[in-house]
């Protein structure tokens, strides 16, 4: 702005706006799309969640260079922790009593839950996509068997966790989900030595069946969690 502009502004002061609010209210509000909303929600996932997720990815990719024997047990033991992160993000609105305010906004609690589940589901899928080839390459099992040993503990922990946060309240729900996830993690870490018969070639089809059932349960629990948002706002 040059000197003349300054001087004109000094001599001819703009009048104070009249009926500013009325004018603003008459304008059509600008809005963001649902896709942009989902992306914006990534910024509101807790930093701790991103840090833990990154550590799991580092663990998956670094473990073949640290331990000599098959890495599959270590990697599959990390999978329930990813499920724990996903469930914990999905449960945040209820845990922190934000559900009612979120329900009354344009996108509503349903969209918030959906956005979080989509985001966490996507990053977990990335982790699984990295884990399967790593475990197959550095392990003793086929790609299908490795995939099932990795995906099954994740799906079982996720479906159980989503069920728990639907029926239990507050921090108790979170602690219960953490306990179930840690139990599944420990089971996978210790299973090679104690339950070797579970991992013979003939048992792979049973792992497939469990994975399928757990996938159906996880989808069902997610849908119920999103559908029952009214119950959530009323009861939490």
């Amino acid at each position: 702005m040059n000197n003349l502009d300054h001087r004109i502004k000094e001599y001819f002061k703009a009048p104070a706006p009249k009926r500013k609010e009325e004018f603003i209210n008459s304008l059509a509000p600008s809005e963001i799309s649902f896709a942009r909303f989902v992306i914006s929600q990534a910024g509101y996932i807790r930093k701790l969640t991103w840090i833990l997720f990154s550590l799991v990815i580092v663990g998956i990719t670094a473990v073949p260079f640290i331990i000599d024997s098959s890495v599959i047990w270590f990697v599959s033991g990390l999978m329930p922790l990813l499920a724990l992160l996903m469930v914990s993000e999905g449960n945040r609105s209820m845990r922190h009593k934000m559900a009612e305010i979120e329900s009354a906004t344009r996108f509503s609690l349903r969209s918030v839950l959906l956005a979080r589940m989509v985001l966490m589901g996507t990053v977990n899928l990335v982790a699984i996509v990295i884990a399967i080839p790593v475990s197959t390459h550095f392990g003793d099992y086929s790609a299908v068997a490795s995939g099932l040993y990795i995906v099954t503990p994740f799906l079982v922990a996720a479906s159980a966790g989503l069920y728990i946060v639907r029926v239990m309240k507050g921090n108790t729900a979170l602690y219960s989900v953490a306990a179930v996830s840690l139990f599944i993690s420990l089971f996978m870490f210790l299973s090679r030595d104690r339950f070797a018969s579970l991992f013979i070639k003939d048992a792979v089809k049973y792992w497939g069946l469990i994975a399928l059932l757990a996938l159906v349960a996880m989808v069902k629990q997610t849908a119920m969690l999103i559908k029952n948002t009214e119950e959530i706002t009323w009861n939490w």
Partner: protein
Amino acid sequence: MELVIDRLSKQYGAKIAVDRISVKLNKGVYGLLGANGAGKSTLMRMICGILKPTGGTVTFDGIDSDKEAFRAILGYLPQDFGYYPEFSAKDFLLYIAALKAIPKKEAKKRVAELLELVGLSDVANKKIKTFSGGMKQRLGIAQALLNRPKLLVLDEPTAGLDPKERVRFRNLLGSIGKDCIVILSTHIVSDVEHLSDEVMIMKDGSFIFQGKWNDSEMSLEDFYLSQFEEDEDHE
């Protein structure tokens, strides 16, 4: 601008929380008065579309309360609300602005305006967990105003406010009520007397009074208290 509540009911088993309430509201501030358990919060939640009625409808200019277009014109302050512990006041408002579909650039401006309006500008970047009850309540009021609502529903908005904050809130509501429909629930009679254009008194899920309080022989407070005396007489 018209909010139509038509035979609105909510039943939980044998208990009727809200019993066939019908009312038409236009621009102005409406005070909803009632004892704890009278059904105020249930009614407010149904008006906001977050609780499904057992019967009846709520529409704003013909838009049903369960529609996105209805939520787009709604501002709501619940009686009891929380916050994410890592949020500052500014984060909280920007987050709610995103949920209200307000673009980021516009949201930043609006958040600054509202923080100024509710007197929280100087603590905008402080964590909410360090706030007093009154500051949290003011932040709650600010989030309800983010989308310049045409329907503003405030459940016990004066709870936790000190006298100075109450005066500030009264002035704020007086100016907002000129352009939109404001419904505020409370069990404090003086709030309704000072803030509202019209009064709705609720008891056992129904309105026992609705309109301007013009009775020169009996004050609103006396009438309200007499309802409890009747209850005691029955017992």
